């Protein structure tokens, strides 16, 4: 019994160290993988902590992925590195920017309208920030067009499947919009301030002829969640498959680098606009009589952390684009030399 347990434990040990070895890119595993795994096994066998050995492998793998240490002079490897640098920086930047701006949008609604010249300037800067945000997100979305063009090199069935995975989530979002309206109509209504409202606070989705049905509203809300998260998960899976299967071309990387620069610059500009609007709004008097509740005299606590996050996201995108551009130049140079 104890022997069997020992064998299981041994399997788990090898599994942890073996799993940590996956932190390295494929070209590294081809070159150094077997001997490095042997060293890790030897160190574990002599009594060194498995966790420490695994941590060393993970740290080494991340370092190699970031710096390209020991990468062979193969054009495909450098082009691949450029592609993955773009993917791993742009995707979090776009998702992060969307999340930060959603939080800031609610915070701005809390701040409320302001009076005087400062208040009007703050509001204009905020509006400019909203347009910049839209431009950043649209530029990021345009990057998927590059993936779409790349799929032309795939055969019909795979191409259709991939495009369905990339486009379906957007169709799901439109469907969710309709479901949200329906759930709002079926939910319990109340009258506040002489206006009909639903639990979500929306008034415009309500039709008087639709009866209250909280159970149906709850079922639809759950379906929304499943569809929403399932759709987004499907999108990321399709994107991962696209990154792996769509052939990498230099022109694709060039456009990706351009998108990275625009997104990064946009995030930094967004941080300046939002930061300036917040700084001005603090000093402008509130137009409290237009709102049902007293307007706070200071910005919500999340404001400056959100602005700092936008700066961080912008820097990440700019640095990622620069790194990807460098790798692309090396790939082009190696391909030309070959």
């Amino acid at each position, binding site marked *: 019994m104890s022997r069997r347990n020992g064998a299981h434990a041994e399997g788990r040990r090898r599994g942890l160290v073996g799993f940590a070895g996956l932190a390295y890119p494929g070209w590294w595993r081809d070159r*150094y993988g077997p001997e*490095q795994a042997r060293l890790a096994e030897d160190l574990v066998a002599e009594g060194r902590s498995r966790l420490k050995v695994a941590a060393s492998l993970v740290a*080494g793998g991340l*370092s190699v992925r970031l710096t390209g240490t*020991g990468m062979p002079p193969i054009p495909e490897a450098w082009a691949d590195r450029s592609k993955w640098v773009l993917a791993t920086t742009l995707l979090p930047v776009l998702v992060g920017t969307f999340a930060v701006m959603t939080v800031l949008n609610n915070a701005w609604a809390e701040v409320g309208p302001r009076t005087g010249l400062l208040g009007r300037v703050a509001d204009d800067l905020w509006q400019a920030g909203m347009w910049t945000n839209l431009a950043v997100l649209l530029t990021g979305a345009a990057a998927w067009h590059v993936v779409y063009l790349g799929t032309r090199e795939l055969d019909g069935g795979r191409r259709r499947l991939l495009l369905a995975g990339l486009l379906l989530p957007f169709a799901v979002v439109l469907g969710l919009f309709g479901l949200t309206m329906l759930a709002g109509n079926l939910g319990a209504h109340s009258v506040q301030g002489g206006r009909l409202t639903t639990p979500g606070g929306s008034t415009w989705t309500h039709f008087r002829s639709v009866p209250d049905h909280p159970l149906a509203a709850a079922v639809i809300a759950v379906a929304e969640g499943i569809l929403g998260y399932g759709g987004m998960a499907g999108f990321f899976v399709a994107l991962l498959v696209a990154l792996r299967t769509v052939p990498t071309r230099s022109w694709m990387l060039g456009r990706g680098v351009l998108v990275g620069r625009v997104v990064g610059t946009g995030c930094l500009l967004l941080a300046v606009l939002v930061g300036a609007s917040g700084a001005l709004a603090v000093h402008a008097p509130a137009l409290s009589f237009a709102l049902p509740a007293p307007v706070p005299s200071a910005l919500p606590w999340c404001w400056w952390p959100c602005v700092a996050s936008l700066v961080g996201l912008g820097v990440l995108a700019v640095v990622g684009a620069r790194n990807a551009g460098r790798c692309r130049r090396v790939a082009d140079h190696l391909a030309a030399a070959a």
Partner: protein
Amino acid sequence: MVHSMALSERSDPSLLVLVSLAEGPKHGYALTKDIEAFAGISLGPGTLYGCIARLEGRGLIEALPAEDRRNPYRLTAAGATALREELERAAATSALGLRRLEVGPV
């Protein structure tokens, strides 16, 4: 003692690998044990192979045929020259530092 450990931990692992290989070809495990013996530093497999890849890329070491997933490495002529220059520079710095310590602060 604490200060000397702190300084030695800051040593470049690549230099330690070169010093170890100056004795003769070694594979990863032998390198780890040797460095542990003469420098008191336990290099992890990630750190060690990061150094090996860098040194191999710069042509300072080269791989020998593998035996049972153990790949020995040896110093190249360029590696031996680079190591000698580095050690002479370090020796000159050490000698200067020791002389100044003997004289003491002015």
